[in-house]
């Protein structure tokens, strides 16, 4: 992994989630659902190359539970040991 490679920060609000499964269905490598059907973010700092796929998940979420923003570079380095 290249040091300082741009990453996204993805958060999901489980109190809003209605278990529609849209995110888990279009981007299973990023999103999952727990036993109760609520969203679980599997990869909170994905590669920025996933931007458009993540945006699609944001768009499809029927209750606006998903948020994506560019991650602070320090976050990415910290998490991924770049």
């Amino acid at each position, binding site marked *: 992994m290249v040091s300082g490679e741009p990453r996204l920060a993805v958060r999901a609000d489980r109190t809003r989630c*209605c*278990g*529609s*499964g849209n995110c*888990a*269905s*279009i981007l*299973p490598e990023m999103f*999952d*659902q727990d*036993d*109760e*059907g*609520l969203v679980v973010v599997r990869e909170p700092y994905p590669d920025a190359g996933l931007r458009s796929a993540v945006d*699609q998940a944001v*768009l*499809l979420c*029927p*209750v*606006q539970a998903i948020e994506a923003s560019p991650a602070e570079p320090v976050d990415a380095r910290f998490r991924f040991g770049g």
Partner: protein
Amino acid sequence: MSLPAYPMQRSDPYGIPRQLAELAARGPVDRVRLWDDSTAWIVTGWREARAVLADNRFSADVGRPGYPHLRPGFRGSRLAAAAGGAGGATMLRMDPPAHDELRRLLTGFFTVRRIATLRPMVEERAAACLDAVQAAGPPCDLISTLAVPLPSLVLCELLGVPVADRPHFEELSVALIDSAATQRQLIGTLRGLSDYLEELVTGKEKNPETDLLSVLVQGPVRDGRMSRADLLGTARLLLTAGHETSASMLSLTLATLLRDRTAWDFLGSAPEAIPAAVEELLRFHTIASAGLSRVATADVTVADQIIRAGEGVIVSVEAANRDPAAFEDPDRLRLDRGARHHLSFGYGVHQCLGQALARVELQVAIERTIRRFPTLRVAEGEGRIEFAHDRMIHGVHRLEVAW
């Protein structure tokens, strides 16, 4: 000038009513007149439809004053009525927070992963339906042999209807979607269904298994998070929301693919294109054609119009699904367009709980039918296809095929 009457007459099974298209072309929010001379807002823009459906200031409670009723009596709004008509409200007509509490007891059964484990079962049931088509020989009606029974068989499996009860259950669920039934017959059917579900739940209480009803009986019902009335209402909702919808969508899908041989042959040669095609078919034939009804509980501005508290709103998802701002050249069926943002399963907290299951049913039915009968065609002669324009849910009565 008087307001246009709603619901509007459909003349082309592959299009939306002409008057609705005209209304949508004038702007995203407008007004219509209902059967009882009351008026309601109608939302036809994709962006505005999402805004209304995602806004909890719009209530789905059919009992609230101002809620737009599309026809007299419970024949009116089939989804709403069948769900709320015979005893107790169901989540479909409840608002948060009560809605969310009830829905959360169910979402675990409908996750993408959980539903994926049901795919082999759906394939097996589809194969059995296609065996029956084969055995019947041409000309054979695909609606009564495949489109109607498949979703019913899948629901039996999900709810845990014992094999011995299936003929009775199927009879009830077919009667429930029989558009020729009188109101009286329909009430009788709903009563029969309530009685049957009561018996089914009692059975699960005595001998729980691994199906959805048994799990609910042993968990949330036992520990008091779900009342028995809510359990019965939920069982009824799953049947009413999960049968006619899937059956209609499957019928329209088959009719559409048989009309366009290139589509049939394309999906036969490229089954990996089926999931995307299903999304486009869902968009193209928005079967909740009567729209999704809500009533404002506060003054809300939508596209510069102030919708006052107490006023009814009809979100025309079929018009929104043909909004050129969201779908280029919307009247054309383009199987690979990427139509996943359609509103055919609704939007907001009520977005279809069974959508993953509906997708699997449609994907499996298309794949299996094409594989088994690659040369399938509409049978020669008059009257082989009869569309159902008379229902609140858009569908097909008869589709006779040969091969």
